[in-house]
């Protein structure tokens, strides 16, 4: 499903974000990418949805070779990958439902189909009664759940969550992780980028640890060891 072969990413001659990273993530896996700040976790996540291209090596997502992807194919790839960020990236002037519908509208999904999908994904994240609220009227945890609902709108095969609990308290962080676990149980591959020790240890899933742009450990039922 996801395969990185000897991937390096260089931002400038002196800034090497990733060095010879090789990684294979099977369909349906829940993988945590951990490491301290500046170790290349976010760069690795960005490679997965073609926000960055590798300087060297291959990034294969399903049938897509990200290292050779054409610009016009990037939107098609992104419709198969749901992305969740620390800062939620919600449009404050749109309601919860409109935020989710927006993701579908810009991808050309028909209005009738949008009306069907939006309540479905809101139900999955347990916000079915918040559709008409604006993001500012929700708690941080609820806003992140809206962001997850939006990521789910395209029924993606992969969810990439970059520090989704970074702005949340412990209770909300656990709620979000439980939600991601639930999504993973439905068969969606989840790649969680985090430096939250508690979250990683609680998960008891595969943990890939990065240090200075290199993978220093990859454990099937790992813990946060840095």
């Amino acid at each position, binding site marked *: 499903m996801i395969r990185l072969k000897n991937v390096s990413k260089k931002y400038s001659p002196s800034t090497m974000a990733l060095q010879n990273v090789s990684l294979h993530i099977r369909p349906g896996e829940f993988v945590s990418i951990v490491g301290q700040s500046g170790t290349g976790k976010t760069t690795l996540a960005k490679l997965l*949805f073609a*926000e960055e291209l590798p300087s060297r090596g291959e990034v294969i997502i399903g049938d897509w070779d990200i290292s050779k992807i054409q*610009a*016009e194919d990037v*939107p*098609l*790839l*992104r*419709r198969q990958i749901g*992305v969740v960020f620390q800062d939620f*990236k919600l*449009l404050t002037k749109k309601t919860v439902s409109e935020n989710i519908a*927006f*993701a579908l*509208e*810009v*991808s*050309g999904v*028909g*209005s009738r189909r949008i009306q069907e999908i939006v309540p479905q994904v809101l139900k999955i994240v347990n916000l079915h009664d918040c559709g008409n609220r604006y993001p500012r009227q929700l708690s941080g945890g609820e806003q992140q759940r809206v962001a997850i609902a*939006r990521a789910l*709108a*395209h029924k993606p095969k992969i969810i990439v969550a970059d520090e989704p609990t970074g702005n949340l308290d412990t209770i909300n962080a656990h709620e979000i992780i439980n939600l991601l676990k639930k999504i993973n149980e439905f068969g969606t591959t989840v790649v969680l980028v985090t430096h939250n020790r508690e979250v990683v240890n609680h998960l008891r899933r595969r943990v890939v640890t990065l240090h200075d742009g290199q993978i220093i450990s990859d454990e099937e039922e790992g813990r946060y060891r840095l």
Partner: protein
Amino acid sequence: MSTLLRVIKFAFQHFFRNIWLSLVTVSMLTLTLLALNILLSLNLATDAAIKNIESRVDISVTFKTEAVESDAKNTAIYLQSFSEVRDVQIITPDEALEAFKIKHANNPIVLASIEEVGENPFGYELIIQANSTDNYPMILEALDNPSFRDQIEDKDFASHEAVLNKISSVANQVRFFGLILVILFLTIAVLIVFNTVRVAIFVHREEISIMRLVGATGWFIRTPFLIEALIFSFLAVLISGAFMIFAATVLDPVFASYFDSGSKLKDFFIGQGYWVYGSEFVGAALVCLFSTAVAMRKYLRV
């Protein structure tokens, strides 16, 4: 179809979310088009003035009193054989005397002096009009033909050349400064459209980044900005066109009273409106699209 409608919806959202900037952009484009339309009006007015004066240019050939009707007729037939000659009118001595009396009806001294002379002092006269003012030197030359040169007493060429030159010179100067004004307004309009798009991209940066993340195509992100450019152009043409139709309706009778040939303002700005405003829309749209494309290339990362 729904995608196109959404793109149009986003274009209008861009327009209304930066309403003041959008209004400034439309105003500047409107000013540019108004300057262009005023320049076109001045062109029409000077053309009408020149045609008006040109229609009054003629050569008046006076025959000696001893010349007979056949001399005048033969000369007229000879002149009419030239394609450059539009009209030759023969005025008999009696008609010339009658016209003179009418002209000086209020001047008893002049009338008395005519009576004193006793006989008709006027000979045959030809009034010659050419197709173009450029043809008059050739006609004057043709009148030097030995067959009737000796019968001619005088040739009067009222060329109005000085007036024509003055009008042409003033018209050229007005056109020149008008053109500079249009170019100046156009440059400002291009810069304002550029800035408007730049600000719109900045204002919508969050929305654009989300669009990219959720799989919107480059076309879907860029097209609203291009449609917004078309909205600017359309509104500018609509406002300047409405102003010109109003101005043409009000000024047409005023212009018509000045020129014998009548005014063409109404005919141009209303009769040929589709062509005039259609061309202006295409021109304004191309300018706006160019400016938008440059701004997107520089600031919009898709």
